[in-house]
């Protein structure tokens, strides 16, 4: 099993307020890591640090041949004034991937001409998650992917993520809802204390 990611002694603080300290873990291909913690424990910050957006206050993140990272955060990166179709075209879909299967599964195929602003929250979330389904990256970083999803879409997401795990991709996510994926856990509340 190849190593994908190693965190050594990570600490993060905002304006001198410490969120977590001395966090170390490793992530191998085909593994999943579920980040737990109460509100304000630094889950989002940790995921942003892993995806490279934020620099940790102390410690380092080592990445081993990860050419692409797929990140889905709280912000859905959708253009409200564009139609669903235009938004999908902005995602740079690989030609090999059959888009329609996913659109049908997520019940988005009839909404292609609708402006994103007119979609419901759950529909927008599903559209944002298309990024996950269409990715070709080695590391998936998902921040609360299931908020606002109905049961059906959640199941589709989970089964897709399980497939990705089989496919030797690494997965790290935070979620308040339990996802049906075998994963290791990190509890940020315990790290801090």
């Amino acid at each position, binding site marked *: 099993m190849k190593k994908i990611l190693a965190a050594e002694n990570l600490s993060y603080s905002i304006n001198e307020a410490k969120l977590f300290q001395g966090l170390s873990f490793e992530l191998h291909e085909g593994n999943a890591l579920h980040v737990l913690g109460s509100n304000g424990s630094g889950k989002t910050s940790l995921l942003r640090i892993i995806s490279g957006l934020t620099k940790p206050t102390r410690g380092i993140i080592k990445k081993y041949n990860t050419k692409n990272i797929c990140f889905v955060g709280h912000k859905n*990166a959708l253009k409200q*004034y564009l139609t669903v179709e235009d938004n999908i075209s902005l995602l740079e879909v690989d030609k090999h991937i059959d888009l329609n299967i996913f659109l049908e599964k997520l019940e988005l195929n009839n909404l292609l001409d609708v402006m994103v602003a007119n979609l419901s929250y759950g529909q927008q979330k599903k559209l944002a998650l298309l990024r996950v389904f269409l990715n070709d990256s080695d590391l998936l970083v998902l921040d609360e992917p299931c908020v606002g999803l109905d049961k059906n879409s959640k199941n589709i997401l989970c089964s897709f993520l399980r497939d990705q795990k089989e496919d030797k991709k690494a997965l790290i996510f935070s979620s308040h809802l339990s996802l049906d994926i075998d994963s290791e856990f990190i509890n940020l509340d315990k790290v801090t204390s």
Partner: protein
Amino acid sequence: MKLINFEFLKLRKKSRGWLGPILVFILIMTAFPLTVEILNSNLEQAFFSVLWIATLLVMMLATEDIFLEDYNDGTLEQTAIKYDSLALLVAIKIFVYWSLIGIPISLIGALYAFGITGSIESALQILPVLIITTYIFLNIFSFGNALSLTKGSILGTLITMPLVLPLLVVLGKVVIAINLGISFLGFLFLLLGILSIIILILPMVISFVIKAHLE
């Protein structure tokens, strides 16, 4: 190439983003003669001052949303993760804004110059100056709006207006040269020189600022 297409798509579909500034420009240029007496022959003299200030303000308004929208909806995050060079994206964005807003405004400005001074020559002379100037303004104001990203464009204007003052002096000199019929090629090259330095440096500075915002 893909990025250019995306940015064009995004700006084109948002008509208030590109059509809005152009219309505001037209409004200002139409409104200013109303403040002067109609038979006043000084209209010509005031015209160029109003032209420069209108261009300045409209470019400021146009860049207000340039990074804010992408920052708010998370597109900037995605781009920062996906591509190594954010500076390239910044440069492309400014280029797209220039071609959809800057160039039309330059053409309209030249048209107004023809309408008010009545000479095709001065309109043709003012056109390249406007085209270069709008590009410089867009770069500088993008920098200001990147700094004041979530804090509104008043702050952005406050901190970048002093930076463009030297440019206004050059523009004033250009107008004098045009009015006196002296060759203004020297000024044009000066503006081009400023533009080439700014194009190279500012996108990098802006991308540094944006990365700090994303943290």
